[in-house]
């Protein structure tokens, strides 16, 4: 989970070989990259612009920009970082043209809610603040963690988050970008990023807990 200490970002070598394939016009390489990143790109863009159609335009323009810029891409950053930087810049510009409020202009009220229902902790007495209803004790087997069903459920949970949280968790935890890259890309402080990530991860964990419990009961 920690974002520090990785000599090469995850997937970077594979991306580099896909870039080489793409430079030689390999359609399969392009399709792989489109499938790997476009759903996240749409979700991030949608946080900045007014409609799904506008978000699709931004994603399409970004990929076309990547195709045009491939020959000058010097691989100082990973393809993924480069791609999401272009995307955020385009989405931000489009959002400004639409006079939309930026997703990070202020932390909204929803961002201030606790990540676990306060009723799950003792309210008073000597043990106030300790769990009264602790996290589910059911464990989750590895094969279930990797199940398509669990992935779809947690992605759906992300889609119910406020836009600023959706953007941060999508870049950090779905795509695995590191903290510094994301702060720079989104032009937010590390502190603000952590607050948004904390809220978002809390809700995704709650969704997983609900899923584990439902599977145990069924």
């Amino acid at each position, binding site marked *: *989970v*920690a*974002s*520090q200490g990785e000599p090469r970002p995850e997937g970077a070598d594979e991306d580099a070989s896909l870039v080489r394939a793409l430079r030689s*016009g390999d*359609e399969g390489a*392009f*399709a792989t990259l*489109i*499938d790997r990143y*476009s*759903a*996240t790109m*749409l979700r991030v863009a949608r946080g900045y612009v007014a409609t799904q159609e506008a978000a*699709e335009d931004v*994603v*399409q323009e970004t*990929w*076309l920009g990547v*195709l*045009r810029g491939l020959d000058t891409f010097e691989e100082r950053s990973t393809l993924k970082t480069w791609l999401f930087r272009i995307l955020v810049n385009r989405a931000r510009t489009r959002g400004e043209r639409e006079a939309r409020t930026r997703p990070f202009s202020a932390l909204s009220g929803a961002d201030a809610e*606790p*990540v*676990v229902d306060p009723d799950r*902790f003792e309210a008073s007495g*000597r*043990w106030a*603040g*300790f*769990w009264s209803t*602790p*996290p*589910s*004790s059911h464990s*989750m087997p590895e094969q279930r*963690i*990797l199940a*398509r069903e*669990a*992935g*779809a459920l*947690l*992605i759906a949970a*992300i889609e119910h988050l406020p836009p600023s949280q959706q953007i941060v*968790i999508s870049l950090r*935890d*779905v795509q*695995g970008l590191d*903290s510094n890259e994301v702060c720079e890309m989104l032009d937010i402080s*590390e502190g603000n990023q*952590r607050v948004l*990530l*904390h809220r978002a*991860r*809390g809700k*995704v*964990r709650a*969704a*997983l*807990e609900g899923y584990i419990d439902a599977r145990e009961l069924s």
Partner: protein
Amino acid sequence: MIMQPSVRCEEFVADVTNWMEGALDADQRSLIEEHLSICPDCVRYVDQLRAALTVLRAASEPAPGPLRDALLAALRESRG
């Protein structure tokens, strides 16, 4: 008399991302880790959080079909 941990579970949960992100100073970190060493419920909380992150990294979301088709057509066009 049972000794209470110096960090309560509610405080642990509030600080868990700062801890996972390496954003706590040494004193705060050792208090959080001390809590974790004696609280199986908070260990489960962290385990679920980590499992959720593993699920997200493994989740596959293919691109919407029409967007994919339009982009592949653009690639073909760019190659002439």
